[in-house]
């Protein structure tokens, strides 16, 4: 096997090792090359920016689990920071039972940064079985669907929930979604289409392509697509001076950039070998 042929048959393990190196190195040598924000991330940021402070709450639904945490969890943190910095009340719920722990984790992390108090500035409704019945019920009455919050406190005892009857009192709902039930299978058909709720979303990169048509049709107000979307939101809130917290997604984007370059390099090598060996034949 000559050199050209060898280029086309690099051992799988070498490919894996190469990818591991290019992913790990940027963690220690950050490049911070993010300089541009996509219009869909900007639109979500603007939608949160338009919510009146100390008035009706922003609703965030945690529709993901620890497996998609690297991509979506930074979005949750960034959104909470944005809302809390602007004194916008926040109501968090989960359509995935495995997302409840993540919601608690993020609220416990971010709320103290802004001196926010549970019940007064934010509430956590937790998870309820039967996602379709839950979101449809919320359109009728949130306190009837969730009589108590995650900690068994009746909703009418939480100041943040005063005057919040149904989606009419939710200026914006955001589904952070890693699949089904999520933004495309539940929030758009049941909540946006039925109740005309303004809806934003954060999705994994692999399902972003499926979410774009809803952006074009106006059913989604804004969209964060994968780690890149999370990084863009972190960039936007940092630029607006809302936070000085760490930016895990921006850092992780360096690894992703490098991994993409590495894959392109591998494809180029494969094709160089293919063309050279074909010519010889």
């Amino acid at each position: 096997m000559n050199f050209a042929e060898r280029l086309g048959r690099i051992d799988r393990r070498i490919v894996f090792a190469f990818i591991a190196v290019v992913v790990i190195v940027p963690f220690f040598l950050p490049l911070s090359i993010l300089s541009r924000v996509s219009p869909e991330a900007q639109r979500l940021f603007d939608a949160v920016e338009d919510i009146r402070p100390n008035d009706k709450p922003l609703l965030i639904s945690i529709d993901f689990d620890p497996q998609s945490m690297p991509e979506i969890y930074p979005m949750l943190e960034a959104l909470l920071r944005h809302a809390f910095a602007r004194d916008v009340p926040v109501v968090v719920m989960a359509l995935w039972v495995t997302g409840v722990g993540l919601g608690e984790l993020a609220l416990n992390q971010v709320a103290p940064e802004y001196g926010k108090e549970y019940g007064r500035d934010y509430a956590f409704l937790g998870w309820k079985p039967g996602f379709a019945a839950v979101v449809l019920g919320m359109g009728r009455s949130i306190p009837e669907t969730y009589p108590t919050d995650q900690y068994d406190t009746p909703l009418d005892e939480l100041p943040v929930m005063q005057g919040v009857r149904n989606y009419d009192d939710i200026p914006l709902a955001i589904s952070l979604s890693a699949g089904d039930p999520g933004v495309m299978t539940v929030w758009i058909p049941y909540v946006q289409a039925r109740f005309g709720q303004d809806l934003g979303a954060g999705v994994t990169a692999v399902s972003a392509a499926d979410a774009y048509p809803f952006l074009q049709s106006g059913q989604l107000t804004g969209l964060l697509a994968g780690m890149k979307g999370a990084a863009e939101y972190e960039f936007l809130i940092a630029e607006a001076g809302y936070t000085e917290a760490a930016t895990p997604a921006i850092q992780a984007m360096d690894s992703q950039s490098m991994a993409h370059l590495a894959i392109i390099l591998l494809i180029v090598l494969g094709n160089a070998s293919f063309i050279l060996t074909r010519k010889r034949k």
Partner: protein
Amino acid sequence: MKQALPRLLCLVAGVVMIVQFFVPHGVSETLFSESLRWVRIISAFALILGVRSIIAHHGTRVRRRTAGWVYSAVTLTAMVVSTFIGLFVGKDANTPSLLASGAQTPIPLHMQLLYENIMAPLGATMFSILAFYMASAAYRAFRARNKEATLLLVAAFIVMIGMVPIGAAIWTKFPDVAQWLLNVPNMAAKRGIWFGIALGMIATSLKIILGIERGWLGGGRG
């Protein structure tokens, strides 16, 4: 008779659900959410069959000492341990269980802990393997064999570089071109496939409701 009853049930349920879609009355919505609840209850019962299958499958492997029986033993142990913890120790530190009805469980090893420290990292590891597999699959498959493959290659190149910040750093127009490729040619093709899928779904549903397609009941059709 063995097939007639399920087919009748399928016909009735199918027609009722189609009608439900067109009826905004509260009765229809209650029917819909109630049927979702039924599905959940039935799934819970089916899980018992699943557990029986796991025990039978892996139990046989362990008994016969077939190649790789150790993995089966690990699976069975994990199932017994997590069932025990779930039933007797509890969901998390504050939830009562069969062992402790009070606020605190006597053993600190509850379900949440298992989930956070075993399930979540294992799941994340499996998910992260994707990055490596994508690289090796792309390296193997993306060859400019003919005109179409070359076109695919060029498009993939632009999208890959345009979707990460380094793309914009190399040429500011990369993200725009990538987005255009995704939103226009890619979307057009996808919508075409979607139409086919949607019609295929309706046709298959009709065939099932009307009992033309009976494969799912086991046995012949026709």
